[in-house]
């Protein structure tokens, strides 16, 4: 279930330094989030599509990945046009759809999809290991990077444990339903996960001590800087800066 589906490509984007990709995606995402003009948001959307193409990702996978957002957008489109104040563009008895509501929905739709596409193209295309490396080099504290890497490392192990526990419960005739017994059972399963996590943490810490861990994290920085990275970053900066200036004017 936990897979890094997009991380294993050979495209131009995949070859960029993780640090560069993280910075680029932060800059672009915030530029999009702050943008208030539908047309300019459209430009960002095109940029994000270009980045996805540059990363050579399969469209079907990308669309699948966006599914949770589509549900959210569906909800937005149902609620906002009806609840926003402003000029009424359509009325049917007490139902009134307002212009500002519809425009806001369009903006949210474009902006949210754009930000997620940027994230997919730039961040989801690296392994968590590279992400950790990149974060370390943009001066995210050691402990935070370590937390991320370590937590990722053990998710798969703990998930396996959860599956086995749930399987055992099912073998003993457990049928999840809307009742206290079910909630109690899930509480016990979750509790057991925390217990096992804690016991494993003890053993892992012991293993770290045995390997000479002395309260300091070291990392291997093996990304040589090259001109491509810089060019890409300058391109991204230039694009977002010009769009921001354009919007202000």
């Amino acid at each position: 279930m936990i897979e890094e589906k997009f991380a294993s490509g050979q495209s131009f984007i995949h070859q960029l330094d993780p640090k560069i990709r993280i910075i680029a995606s932060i800059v672009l995402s915030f530029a999009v989030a702050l943008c208030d003009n539908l047309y300019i948001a459209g430009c960002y959307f095109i940029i994000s599509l270009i980045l996805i193409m540059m990363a050579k990702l399969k469209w079907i996978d990308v669309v699948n990945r966006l599914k949770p957002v589509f549900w959210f957008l569906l909800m937005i489109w149902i609620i906002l046009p009806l609840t926003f104040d402003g000029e009424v563009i359509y009325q049917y008895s007490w139902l009134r759809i307002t212009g500002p509501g519809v425009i806001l929905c369009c903006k949210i739709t474009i902006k949210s999809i754009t930000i997620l596409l940027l994230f997919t193209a730039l961040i989801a295309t690296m392994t968590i290991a590279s992400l950790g490396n990149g974060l370390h080099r943009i001066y995210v504290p050691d402990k935070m990077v370590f937390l991320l890497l370590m937590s990722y490392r053990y998710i798969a192990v703990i998930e396996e444990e959860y599956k086995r526990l749930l399987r055992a419960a099912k073998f003993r005739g457990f049928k999840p339903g809307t009742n206290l017994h079910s909630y109690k059972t899930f509480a016990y399963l979750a509790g057991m996960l925390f217990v096992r996590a804690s016991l494993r943490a003890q053993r892992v810490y012991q293993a770290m001590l045995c390997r000479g861990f002395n309260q300091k994290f070291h990392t291997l920085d093996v990304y040589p800087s090259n001109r491509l990275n810089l060019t890409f970053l300058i391109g991204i900066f230039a694009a977002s800066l010009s769009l921001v200036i354009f919007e202000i004017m």
Partner: protein
Amino acid sequence: MIDNSSIIKLEDISFSYPGSNTRVLDHLNLEINKGDRIGMMAPNGSGKTTLLHTIMGLCKPESGTIEVFGKLLKNEKDFIPVRSKIGLLFQDSDDQLFCPTVLDDVAFGPLNLGFAPQEAINISRKTLERLGIQNFEHRVTHRLSGGQKRLVALAAVLAMEPEVLLLDEPTAGLDNKVKEKLIHILNALDISYFVISHEFDFAKAVTDKIYSMENGKILTDDEIHIHRHEHVHKHGKHPHIHK
């Protein structure tokens, strides 16, 4: 029912894990009849656990048929009622015990079967007594020793009054005392079982015939034979069982 009616019948079962292209089970056939006490000894990774999971409907075979109590089982729904009639003891007891106390854990199955709490408690007490561990009742499962956990897991399975037991390496991690106890318990049971073990002495003590597995197929009694081998031991002053 006739005494040797078929309880579990696998025919021509093939299975491989998704993403792997070796068949763990390869056109496998197996029949467990009423009254059977079958042992299974086979190397690590030969697919024993997978076989048990297939019987329980956890691994969906690519081909072949599974019949339990004379009924053909096809989809998840068919397996649900069957699961409470087949008692599976997991390879690792830690995966099987998730309730706070021993009594809670043993009562979990009966509660799921629809017994009222008091009845479930009675059933559980009786089962614990049967295994001679009634004094564990209020112990916290997670703090029991490996052997104690195994016995509680067995009690949890027996409390559902299954018609057949599937035991996945019940002696792994147990010391000799607990093993002897387990031998007594199994021999006193009047239900059929199928037990995986790496220990010949144990398997021999609790079963009537021993199967093996190779290349995804079952090898029955006449295809395997007894073989002598060296082992290290303390001066045989204690009765011992090998691991």
